[in-house]
């Protein structure tokens, strides 16, 4: 893919086919009270069109924009308030950042240490190179229990590998228990946010989804959030109490003790981590922290950054198996899926520091307007724009993920809020530069434009002619003084923004006039003799000069 005026120009990316039914959702068509289903893709890290195309479509959805504007402004205010309470916030961020840098650089040793400690406490550690291997391991573990239903704690990594779909193919139904995941699952939709996968739904849409798909929603259900939450409680209660197998992700894994941590709010996590007989936890290999004591840093950073709370309602910490308390069988699946490749790269390694708080999504002016689905990955927003292409690698010039580094205004808000200080704007610029470097030597619109500019600017005479040709823009701009529509390739610019017309008199003409009128300095004459083709008319009067000074 190439770029022109900052926009990716590759078009016509293929849309991946829908894989059909999804467990937990009776149908696949959108219900009457909500719209914009995103079909389940085969590749959770690469679906849909390029970002500009998907964004354009999303921007047409005013309901989506209203929902996102409301939700993100709420969470931004909450985060700012609780972060403002912490006098040593910057020191905590420095600690988080440097600990993560240390983790990445020492990952081989820390992974072996974690494995040793989990195993010593009765857990079983599995390793998966990619999504297919991880799904196979989990499927085999569930089958070994003889169960055909599992309950799930919200987990990004199981979204990343498409675990629910893989289990469904083997006849195992996975029930999402996080409220937002439940909403997404019932609507047969895709998540659009790292923390709140159903952030694109408002309360009345959620009510419609529950009434249509839940099966046991009270018929007089209103759209009061409390009533909706109670409906979810009633719906899932029996599942929790009878579930034999649970699947979770992990927020942190402590290498020096083998302790796993899951951070949550509703208690669905505790239900899954405590009541079943078998617990299967899938985690990316980058989620390690070196020591138990390091929890004091990350448990200070994560809740305030993600939900804007001083602390989330429930955090569960467990180490292997505790006799008589909780699941008596514990499996930990360590997933690579592109991470070791990302680790070898400066940009990728920095992106692996991410603790999935989602603060960068909530402050991003681009995310707030287009929503998560436009990114075509389960990891959307600023960090998704870096992480997704790092995890997948590029499949070539037609890869829609190549457009992700351009899904940003580079305003820097994401870096300001990142609890582990990932410099997302710089990483995006690096990725853009790589993209441009790949295109060097190829004929591109940008290259052609630069060549033309270089030809024109090489000689003052040519430049003057070009300036005079600029008069055409005044004709195109008419009385408005702006050009709003140009034919291709100028349309690449005017589709997104207006082009102001060039002023009547150029700077060079003005300079020549000004200096001919007021200066007798021989340097002025020398300058004009150096540029024999360049002088303007020395006779223009001052009135004309002042008019041109008004740059509309």
């Amino acid at each position, binding site marked *: 893919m190439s770029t022109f005026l900052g926009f990716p120009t590759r078009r016509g990316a293929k849309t991946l086919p829908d894989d059909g039914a999804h467990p937990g959702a009776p149908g696949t068509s959108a219900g009457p009270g909500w719209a914009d289903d995103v079909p389940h893709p085969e590749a959770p890290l690469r679906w849909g069109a390029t970002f500009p195309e998907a964004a354009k479509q999303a921007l047409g959805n005013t309901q989506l924009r209203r929902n996102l504007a409301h939700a993100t402004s709420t969470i931004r205010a909450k985060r700012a308030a609780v972060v403002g309470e912490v006098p040593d916030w910057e020191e905590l961020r420095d600690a988080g950042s*440097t600990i993560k840098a240390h983790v990445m650089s020492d990952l081989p040793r820390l992974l072996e240490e974690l494995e040793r400690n989990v195993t010593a406490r009765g857990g079983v550690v599995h*390793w998966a*190179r990619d999504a297919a291997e991880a799904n196979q391991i989990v499927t085999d573990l569930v089958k070994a229990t003889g169960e055909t239903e599992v309950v799930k704690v919200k987990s990004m990594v199981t979204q990343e590998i498409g675990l629910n779909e893989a289990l469904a193919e083997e006849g195992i139904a996975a029930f999402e228990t996080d409220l937002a995941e439940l909403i997404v699952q019932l609507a047969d939709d895709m998540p659009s946010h790292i923390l709140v996968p159903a952030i694109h739904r408002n309360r009345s849409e959620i009510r419609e989804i529950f009434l249509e798909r839940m099966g046991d929603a009270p018929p007089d259900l209103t759209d009061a959030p409390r009533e909706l939450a109670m409906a979810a409680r009633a719906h899932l209660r029996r599942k929790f109490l009878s579930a034999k197998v649970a699947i979770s992700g992990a927020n942190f894994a402590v290498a020096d003790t083998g302790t796993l941590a899951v951070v949550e709010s509703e208690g669905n996590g505790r239900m899954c981590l405590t009541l079943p007989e078998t617990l299967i936890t899938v985690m990316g290999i980058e989620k390690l922290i070196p020591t138990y004591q390091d929890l004091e840093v990350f448990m200070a950073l994560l809740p305030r950054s993600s939900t804007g709370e001083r602390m989330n309602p429930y955090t569960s910490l467990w180490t292997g198996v505790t006799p008589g308390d909780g699941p008596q069988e514990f499996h930990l699946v360590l997933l690579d899926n592109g991470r070791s490749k990302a680790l070898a790269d400066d940009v990728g390694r920095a992106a692996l520091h991410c603790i999935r708080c989602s603060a960068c999504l909530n402050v991003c002016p681009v995310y707030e307007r287009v929503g998560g689905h436009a990114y075509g990955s389960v990891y959307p927003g600023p960090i998704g724009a870096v992480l997704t292409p790092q995890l997948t690698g590029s499949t070539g010039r037609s890869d829609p993920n190549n457009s992700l580094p351009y899904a940003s205004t580079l305003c820097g808000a994401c870096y300001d809020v990142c609890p582990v200080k990932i410099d997302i704007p710089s990483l995006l610029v690096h990725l853009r530069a790589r993209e441009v470097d790949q295109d060097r030597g190829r004929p591109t619109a940008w290259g052609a434009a630069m060549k033309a500019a270089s030809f024109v600017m090489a000689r003052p005479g040519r430049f003057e002619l070009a300036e005079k040709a600029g008069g055409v823009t005044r004709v195109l701009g008419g009385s408005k003084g702006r050009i709003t529509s140009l034919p291709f390739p100028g349309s690449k610019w005017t589709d997104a923004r207006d082009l102001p017309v060039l002023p009547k008199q150029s700077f060079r003409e003005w300079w020549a006039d000004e200096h001919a009128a007021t200066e007798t300095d021989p340097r002025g004459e020398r300058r004009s003799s150096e540029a024999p083709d360049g002088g303007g008319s020395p006779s223009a009067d001052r009135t004309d000069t002042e008019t041109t000074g008004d740059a509309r």
Partner: protein
Amino acid sequence: MSARDDILARVRAAVINDGAHLGDAVAEQAPVSRGYRTTGEHSPGSAEAIEILVDRLVDYRAIVHRAATTADLARTVGELLADARSVVVPPALPAAWTSALTAGTAVVHDSRDDRRTAAELDQVDAVLTASRLAVADTGTIVLDGADDQGRRAITLVPDLHVCVVRTEHVVHTLPEAVTILAAHPTRPQTWISGPSATSDIELSRVEGVHGPRTLHVILLG
């Protein structure tokens, strides 16, 4: 090559380049920075620390009670559980704490060796436990599965949790708490900050989802 060996080899190749270990460069250029506060200005159990804790607990819709003595505590427990038909308790809960329960409240015992099933716990109205410690700054109570706190399931399934926090166990900051917890890091821990809640609908907080919908905290001492 097994997946394990393959992944470890790839990870090693990513951080070790021609014998140069990335860890050495990171240690030199970005050593771990620990400039944050590791202790608070208020000492454990101080009136100031407790005041902050109460403020945070109330903010997250926990209901806070004070008890100067064990007798006060027993009386408060009796009042809070007056309408409860049953209350589950961990094996080593001080007997005095349940001494003022009314005759209508049955005490259900649970331990790692004698476990109530999830279905049985679902029929129990309330749970009464002690706690390991509390963090004032964040309004967090930590249970670590010791015998006065019990199995994780008992504080999860019943809808009402009465949790006793001894004031001398109230620390100001999170690092102080983690230092104490690090003595037994492998115990199954539950960190509780208010009753269960969700922010999943339009990111507005609603209290009371799957965990206990009501959390009473009795500060003892």
